[in-house]
């Protein structure tokens, strides 16, 4: 079920001749109940896939927006188990929208790869992205996830050579996440022609849908990216809505604000290819 839930989401988008919209949010920011509401808001406003961020103290691949979101979440005491229980709450209300846990290796390593895989499966999670587990290091997690049919979603980047693209593809499932630019989350995007070439290389090597992300902020960019790949990922911009809600003194408004942004992005993606 889990991997096919991901495939179904991409197929459904493709059947409407649009890219799938992959929306990222940080779990536990500002708190778990609000995150649960935010997940629903994302799904209700057009997100096809939800990437649920698991916070880590030292997010090396993230820019300031997601770094700060992780620290806010940790300040509230969010644990990896809480991320999974939030996913589970959402899954009880929604059987269609795939949930991908996105985070760093150490909290998962600490829980134990097999134990994590089992708990994630029980929570209704469909796939996992671990930023600092490249193919060379993800075997234990991969085997654990394979046991419960969860997807291993790997990153491919502009620096990934053709030879490496095969390594990345071999063992990937669900989709491949193509990082548009060598850099951290929330930074600028690369040149369109380069992105297209990278996405095509990832697609050819893996035979999987490819979602492209890093640096997508506006509906215009989302529309542009939707023409290049099977999916578009937006993260920092959505996470920033939480910060704005907190700064406005109304953290409880975060889901509404995130929903509004997601709606405009989803609209742009829906018509992006026409």
């Amino acid at each position, binding site marked *: 079920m889990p991997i096919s839930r991901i495939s179904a989401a991409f197929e459904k988008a493709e059947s409407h001749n649009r890219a799938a919209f992959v929306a990222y949010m940080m779990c536990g920011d500002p708190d778990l109940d609000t995150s649960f509401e935010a997940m629903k808001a994302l799904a209700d406003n057009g997100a096809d896939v939800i990437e649920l961020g698991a916070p*880590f*103290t*030292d*997010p*090396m*691949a993230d*820019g300031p927006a997601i*770094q700060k979101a992780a*620290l806010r979440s*940790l300040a509230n005491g969010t*644990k*990896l188990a809480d991320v999974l229980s939030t996913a589970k709450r959402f899954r009880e209300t929604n059987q269609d929208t795939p949930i991908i846990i996105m985070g*760093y*290796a*150490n*909290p*998962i*390593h*600490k*829980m134990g790869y097999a134990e994590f895989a089992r708990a994630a499966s029980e929570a209704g999670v469909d796939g996992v992205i671990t*930023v*600092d*587990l*490249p193919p*060379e*290091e993800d075997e234990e997690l991969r085997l654990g996830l394979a046991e419960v049919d969860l997807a291993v979603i*790997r*990153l*491919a*980047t*502009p*620096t*990934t*050579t053709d030879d*490496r693209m095969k390594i*990345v593809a071999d063992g990937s499932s669900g989709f491949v996440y193509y*990082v548009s630019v*060598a*850099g*951290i989350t929330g*930074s600028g995007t690369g040149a369109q022609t380069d992105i297209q070439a990278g996405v095509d290389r990832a697609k050819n090597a893996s035979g999987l849908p490819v979602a492209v992300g890093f640096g997508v902020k506006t509906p215009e960019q989302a529309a542009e990216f939707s023409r290049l790949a099977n999916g578009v990922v937006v993260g920092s911009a959505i996470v920033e809505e939480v910060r704005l809600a907190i700064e406005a003194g109304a953290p409880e408004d975060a889901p509404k604000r995130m929903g509004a942004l997601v709606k405009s992005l989803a609209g742009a993606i829906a018509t992006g290819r026409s």
Partner: protein
Amino acid sequence: MDTRNTWDKWPDENGRFGEFGGRYVAETLMPLIHDLEKEYNAAKADPEFETLYRGLMQDYVGRPSAMYFAERLTEHFDGAKIYFKRDELNHTGSHKVNNCLGQVLLALRMGKTRIIAETGAGQHGVATATICARFGLPCTVFMGATDVERQKPNVFRMKLLGAEIVPVSSGTGTLKDAMNEALRDWVTNVHDTFYVIGTAAGPHPYPQLVRDFQSVIGREAKAQILEREGRLPDAVMACIGGGSNAIGLFHPFLEDEGVRLIGVEAEGSGIETGEHAAALNGGEPGILHGNRTYLLQDDDGQIIDAHSISAGLDYPGIGPEHSFLKDTGRAQYLTCTDKEALEAFQLCTKLEGIIPALEPAHAIARVGDVAKELGKDGLIIMNLCGRGDKDVFSVAEHLGIDIA
């Protein structure tokens, strides 16, 4: 002397020392670290690289560093004979330059045109800025905001040398945060930038190449002690931050089973207080900054900030080879509190006329214990890996003396 030994089979082809080490980095960096490994292996086999490195180590860094019999400290502790390996006499004042020179030469070989580094105490930053000045390379140093504050002399030194200093205020503003930020810069500027990591940690091949460049310490020490004493020491000792000066001293002695290898971790206010930097004695294996190693972490795998009076030891991790040496039992790791380090700092200054950096002051404190344990027939080499000029202001502050 040929010091290649069976321990040299580590790291294996996956960059592992037993179950430690590896390459836990984002995909963007993977092709780079594979390139670096290839280039490093080529450089090692290239006599021209070796000649260039050795020549500068001699004429610019000032090697070999002296082996000094610390007579009054020996009398004071009334036990084993204590020798200092004087790496604080190197150009720039610490062992860090041994590694920086090697890495910058590698960067030049790879055609990289921009150097970045992280620094804690500022010694690695100063050494990197120095070598970059020597080769006319632009240099950016990431330094925790807390450390910028407590290591002002080094910050000014780096600026004089032409480096750009980026204060990092995320986290606790110490070494680990500086390293995160350096990694972020690196992924963003992969095409032209070389990251000079300052300790024997990070993704493979860094722990190996830093060890190899620092092993000059142990190779020299071994030859010098054989000449002076006609025998190997009973123990070699060094302080441990990320572990580069210690692994450099230890590695050439790994095969000599009669030689005890003793590292000294920073215990801050005491392990029991939770405010310390002793990853091996108070941590558990985990994954951070590209390698699997002992780390200070909580029950959920979140990294706990380290605490030490010494900015150079204030790091929640440890090079993976030390984790391996600990688990195999080949090396032993003791600890030293802030208070003990301050006392040892003053003791060494008064008795030997050498102001040590706060980092090796940690080792000096435990040298006393080991000297007593070994008794008068014993022989110890301790790496005096840095001088204390950079620390006089913060030591004055800790002693409640106003010198500003």
